[in-house]
């Protein structure tokens, strides 16, 4: 491994972190510091933008440029930052309420536009800062302070929204899994365009254990599948299980049973233009299927900020006018002497 120019601590703010002890946000924050050091983009060339919610406090704990904005609007503000100064590496830190409820419109449109920002979506399936109401990712029937008899609505699956908005990058990780988190955060930053990283995050106070199926290393080997580019889709304690396609659906198989060998398994390719299989993988839910982790989709596409700059450069190459007055003097004018 090459030596890092910056250390994780260079991205860390000495200010005391105020999340609840044990909150998944602490883990993600550490992974983000590590990922940034890995990327080597200087702290002063990095901007971290957030909306409102527990996770949106994150910019205060960074030693980068940061902006803690208003509820749901982080994506729109990050878009403006990136268009204004495309040299900056722009991160947007958000939660399931911030991005999928009040900020749903900005979430889908920033993805559709393919603005080069890295959206980190900390999904704890609850409103923590307002002390425990159900969120747009809480499962049907979820009992919370605002749904004492259980919710009567279905949740969003963040990946489905991202794909519905024609997203080109989607990855998933678990808050406590630093290794995968650093890997997908780094990949998200390296991807040119809007990248979404869904972090399955635990809220120790209001929704403890919501991701318990994948919260420990042991559970993850059994209940999750880490998708790796070019590798067969294998999971399980003894790497004995795998995924195959059956018609338009996925199926969990056991290697060695019914004549199944590793060669029969699907091989992960995050770079295919067609997102059908990526959607299928991202939508897999426990316990019928393992939960997909890692970079699920990573496809090249023109970015919005580059296109804006390119259009200006193209027009300027053809049109030498640079001053307002010169433009006006070329228009419909008359002289009074």
């Amino acid at each position, binding site marked *: 491994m090459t030596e890092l120019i910056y250390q994780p601590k260079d991205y860390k703010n000495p200010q005391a972190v105020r999340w609840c002890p044990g909150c998944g946000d602490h883990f993600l924050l550490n992974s983000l510091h590590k990922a940034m050091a890995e990327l080597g983009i200087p702290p002063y060339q990095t901007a971290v933008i957030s909306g409102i919610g527990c996770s949106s406090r994150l910019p205060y704990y960074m030693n980068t440029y940061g902006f803690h904005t208003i509820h749901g609007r982080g994506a729109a503000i990050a878009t403006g930052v990136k268009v204004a100064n495309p040299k900056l590496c722009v991160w947007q830190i958000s939660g399931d309420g911030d991005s999928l409820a009040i900020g749903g419109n900005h979430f889908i449109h920033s993805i559709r536009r393919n603005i080069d920002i890295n959206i980190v979506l900390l999904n704890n399936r609850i409103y923590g800062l307002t002390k425990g109401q159900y969120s747009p990712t809480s499962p049907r029937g979820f009992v919370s302070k605002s749904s004492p008899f259980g919710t009567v609505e279905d949740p969003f699956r963040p990946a489905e929204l991202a794909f519905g908005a024609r997203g080109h990058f989607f990855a998933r990780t678990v808050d406590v899994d630093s290794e995968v988190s650093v890997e997908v955060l780094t990949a998200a930053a390296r991807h040119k365009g809007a990248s979404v990283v869904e972090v399955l995050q635990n809220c120790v106070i209001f929704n403890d254990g919501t991701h318990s199926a994948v919260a420990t290393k042991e559970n993850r080997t059994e209940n999750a599948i880490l998708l790796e580019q070019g590798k067969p889709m294998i999971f399980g304690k003894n790497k004995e299980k795998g995924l195959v396609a059956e018609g338009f659906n996925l199926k969990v198989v056991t290697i060695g049973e019914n004549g199944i060998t590793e060669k029969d398994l699907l091989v992960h390719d995050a770079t295919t233009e067609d997102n059908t299989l990526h959607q299928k993988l991202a939508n897999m839910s426990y316990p019928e299927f393992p939960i997909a982790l890692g970079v699920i989709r990573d496809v090249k596409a023109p970015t919005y900020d580059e296109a804006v700059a390119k259009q200006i450069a193209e027009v300027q190459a053809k049109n030498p006018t640079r001053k*307002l007055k010169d433009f*006006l003097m070329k228009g419909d004018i008359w002289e009074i002497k």
Partner: protein
Amino acid sequence: MMEKEGKIVNLDNVVVRFSGDSGDGMQLAGSIFSNISALVGNEISTFPDYPAEIRAPQGTLSGVSGYQVHIGAKIYTPGDKADVLIAMNPAALKTNVRFIKSNSVIITDSDAFTKKDLEKALFTTDNPFEELGLKSIQLIEAPITTMVKSSLENSGLDNKGVLRCKNMFALGIVCWLFDRSLSAAENMIKTKFAKKASIAEANIKVLNDGYNFGANTHASVSTYRIETSEKEKGFYTDIDGNKATAYGLIAAAEKAGLELFLGSYPITPATDILHELAKHKELGVKTVQAEDEIAGICTAIGASFAGNLAATSTSGPGLALKSEAIGLAVMAELPLVIIDVQRGGPSTGLPTKSEQTDLFQALYGRNGESPVVVISATSSTNCFDAAYWAAKLAVEHMTPVILLTDGYIANGSAAWCIPDIENYPSIKPNYIEKDIENWKPYLRNEETKVRYWALPGKEGYQHRLGGLEKDYNTSVISTDPENHELMTQTRQAKIQKIADFIPELTVQGETNADFLVVGWGGTYGHLCSAVNEMNKKGKKTAFAHFGFINPLPKNTKEVLSKYKKIVVCEQNLGQFAGYLRMKMPGLHIYQYNEVKGQPFLVNDLVNCFTKLMEE
């Protein structure tokens, strides 16, 4: 009726109103006429009056679109009532009858006045002129449709294309009426249809036909020669308020050495600002058509944070949606220009009409103590200066600035002397300087209370801003009660201090009168004309018009307290009057208010002032 047969009448000004179906091309005919008038030295002021529907059913009252042109000397408004009305159909005649003088010249397309056409416009008799009580008009009935069809018989255009040229026939008649040479109009048509030579040719042919029709058959109607005026030397162009606003922002960015960014969502009547700025990639302007009003301002706030001159453009309903984000810019102390092209409200209201009803929204429409700079543009051409000032105050004082224009000045146009930006006041962003010790993001110039702008990308100045209250000294989050009060007062003091950096209030007209007319924003032209008329009649009237509203010019109280009687005129129910009463208790203020979505009428103002003066 035609007593001035064949004579040429000299007038100091004249108002011409072009009207027809919204697809009839009346705006184009009107704007060509105003431009060629400006070319011969007339002052011009124009105002389009278009329906909210894009294409209402043909020939119906709701589909009438109008374009009023006022030309002559000392022109401040598009004129109260028209001397000449071009009515392409009965519906246009009917809807415009209240906008014309009793002895006006009316030009009609007589082919469009069949029984069926009259019914569509809800006339109940065969004679629409009689039915409307038009007794002393001079009528020019021209079979425009028939003549255009026969003129373009061999042009190769299809029927639809042929009929589209009717507006140029009408324009030809008007050019004859006002003794306008056709060559300038022909050049404009050539430019407009530069890529469609056959269409340009057809339009020019019909324009000449219209002119000849006037000259040949109506030699008995009086034609007019309009006074020209002595104007400042220089190069002029015809400009509407939205364009002027866009150019003002570009000029400010150029002066400040900043890139210009506009985040906006389409909304009537502000969209043309987005259209104009989107055109100027050669000048480096960046525009983002956002997914909604909120994203419009939020992308601009992001761009401001990153170091652009950032603006967002909207109208009343959009300003309402942006209010939370404006609060963020107040709290983060970031420069931002918010342009509100006011329209009739509340809610969707009258999207294509004009009002001044957003003043309170601009001043107070946010949660918390949330002071912003509020300024207003006084005319179409003044939108340039107002936008320039808005940008200047925003970047020099690190604050959002709301610029109030309105639908009337945004769409109205006038001749504008292209300025030298070099002669405009400098714009110096309050950047962080190297020698500032113990820099913190909210460290401020103690005199002006302005914090320093450190741009992302600059090494050593990484900082975090946000909507949460910050400590005055350390700039970290604070809920300390004393600190919050200090910060609240500091933000207020910062805005108040701006009074030291803006021009003082001036008084026009008879400054030593007892009676003072007060206005703000887009009503300047009408108020100015009314005050001039009062003084012409020997009724001594002074006039003070506000562009800067928050803070008010420093000498406001001193000026206002000189007058015995003050009348504040505005197109709302008295918002500025109420604001002045609150800021300057003790003043006795009368009000003149109209909320009709239409500009004031000079005549109504004069009547009101006369009555008030005599009270």
